């Protein structure tokens, strides 16, 4: 696997605290308010979210950053476009945001995303938890492929994969 030279890359972790949830966390060398702004303002979102390289861009971004406000992102990628949308539920600037998220391909599969921003040794820890309504919905979203999904018991899977590799 390629080793990233980006700061704090090694602090990224994916865990599955429950069968309906996936949680990701990472440290960033920036104050909380900046991480919050980067994640909630379109001028910034367009510059990083889904910008994985050549052929990737965010041609559309709408964000009404109020409880009940709608949001919508379009991610153009080499094979087409992926559309995500939802409604903001809670906005505590630089602390916590809660919003619903739907991947347009599966309009019935609404997930609830909670992002928290905390100080940690002069850096910011971002923790993103995605909660799916049921195992079936999560599996359907997962099976949709690369752009969105949750990894079921990824830690367990990794454990099994490691054993398989050792066989």
């Amino acid at each position, binding site marked *: 696997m390629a080793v990233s030279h980006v700061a704090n890359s090694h602090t990224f972790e994916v865990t599955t605290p429950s069968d309906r949830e996936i949680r990701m966390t990472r440290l960033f060398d*920036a104050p909380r308010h900046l991480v919050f702004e*980067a994640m909630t303002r379109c001028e910034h979102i367009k510059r990083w979210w889904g910008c994985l390289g050549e052929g990737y861009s965010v041609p559309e971004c709408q964000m009404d950053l109020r409880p009940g406000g709608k949001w919508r992102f379009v991610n153009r990628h080499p094979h087409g476009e992926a559309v995500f949308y939802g409604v903001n539920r809670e906005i505590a600037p630089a602390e916590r945001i809660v919003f619903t998220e739907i991947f347009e391909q599966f309009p019935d599969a609404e997930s609830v995303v909670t992002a928290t921003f905390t100080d940690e040794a002069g850096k910011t820890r971002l923790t993103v938890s995605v909660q799916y309504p049921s195992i079936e919905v999560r599996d359907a979203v997962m099976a949709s492929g690369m752009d969105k999904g949750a990894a079921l018991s990824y830690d367990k899977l990794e454990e099994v994969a490691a054993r398989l590799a050792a066989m």
Partner: protein
Amino acid sequence: MATDQLSATFAALADPTRRAIIARLASGECSVTELAEPFEMSMPAVSKHLRVLEQAGLISRGRDAQYRPCRLEPAPLKEAADWAERYRALWAQRLDRLETYLQEMKAKEKKHGRQSRRK
């Protein structure tokens, strides 16, 4: 509901007992009786889990009618692990990109003093 292999694999793994069975079989094939032991479950209950795993192609059963040892079929698990790794890698890459972008934001904020920061 989708019925592709990846969905079948994840659906079969969406149960702690079945994951424990898979983990047990990763260290070698064994009989249903041996598998049932650590779970304090009835044989029919274990057999039901084994059927789900077998239908998903995650395990296979021997032909011997009496013994029928269970063994792991690694290919679908490998596919699922690869998928999970791609998922992880995608998000790692996305958040690396955010880190890089934050450094640009920080540099800008420094240059413009506290102007860009919302009051």
